[in-house]
């Protein structure tokens, strides 16, 4: 059986039966999107690599107990997001007293000056608080729907909507003017 063409559910079944090739298929199917999300969430290649590795390790270890009704993609993103949040907690980045402020640092504009678009986006995302960063990443880069983001972030659709709006306002206010400036130069 060529597992590359098979659905996630079939691959999981094969993995449960002990076909190790099924793990390779699932890894190649999801590695890029998971690594991309982890890298943009954590802004550190080594932390992103560790988080993705841990996610696949959990997949392999818990394949027997995985709920069949769950989408594998959502499950992987949920596990990876929790791994990434643990990394951030260890870095103490989320300890910001000001609840109203969406940015981790005081003035993101200073940190973003003189950078290329890619760097601007990466830096801006890094400066956003994790709860706003995750929704922007899942929506703008991974194209998940509101419902899917709610499943991955274990929150409600209204919370996803509200965080997206706030994040977009913050980005529109501080980040997009820098792209526009760059275009004028």
């Amino acid at each position, binding site marked *: 059986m060529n597992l590359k063409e098979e659905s996630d559910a079939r691959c999981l079944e094969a993995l449960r039966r002990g076909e*190790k090739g099924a*793990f*390779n298929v699932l*890894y190649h199917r999801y*590695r*890029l999107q998971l*690594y*991309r999300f982890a*890298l943009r969430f954590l802004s550190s*290649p080594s932390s992103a*690599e560790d988080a*993705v*590795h841990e996610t*696949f*390790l959990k997949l*392999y*270890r*818990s*394949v*027997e*107990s995985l*709920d*069949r009704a769950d989408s594998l993609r959502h499950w992987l993103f949920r596990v990876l997001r929790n791994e990434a949040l643990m990394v951030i907690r260890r870095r103490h980045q989320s300890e910001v007293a000001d609840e109203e402020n969406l940015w981790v640092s005081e003035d993101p504009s200073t940190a973003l000056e003189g950078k290329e*678009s*890619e760097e601007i*986006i990466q830096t801006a995302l890094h400066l956003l608080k994790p709860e706003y960063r995750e929704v922007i990443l899942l*929506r*703008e*880069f991974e194209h998940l*729907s*509101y419902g899917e983001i709610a499943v991955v972030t274990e929150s409600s659709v209204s919370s996803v*909507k509200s965080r*997206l*709006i706030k994040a*977009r*306002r913050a*980005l*529109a206010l501080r*980040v*997009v003017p820098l*792209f*526009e400036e760059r275009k004028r130069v």
Partner: protein
Amino acid sequence: MSCDAYQEMVSVYIDYELDDESARTLFGHLSACAGCRQFLQKSLHFRTVASLLPDPGVPPSLDRRALAIPHATPKKGRSFIAAFWRRWRERIAVPLPAAALAITLLLLSTAVAILRTAGPGQAATPEPRVVYVMQLSPIEVHPNPSQ
């Protein structure tokens, strides 16, 4: 409605989750409000720049580590108990109570239907009731007891 509310609609609109009626209301406002129009333009500008970012390459070291997992890791929950719990959850814990509930509802609705068809108009003839009548001997009653 405030500009904050319209900007919320802008955010939902660019995510393709706004219904047609609300979209018409939103565009009515956008034609008159430069601030909200600018928010829409900036949000779309961010999306454009974000979509042009190249994908990061997956490091070969991650491939090596991840692909070694099946060869170096024992599976958790491969035991009989874990398999039993999974089967219990998937085949018994939900399907059986659901089937029992469906059967109960079916029986209840049948009972209600039967009771309704035997309504007051078509009620069966009532059972004859047994009435006991005591025969009393006549008593003489005088209008004035002192006489």
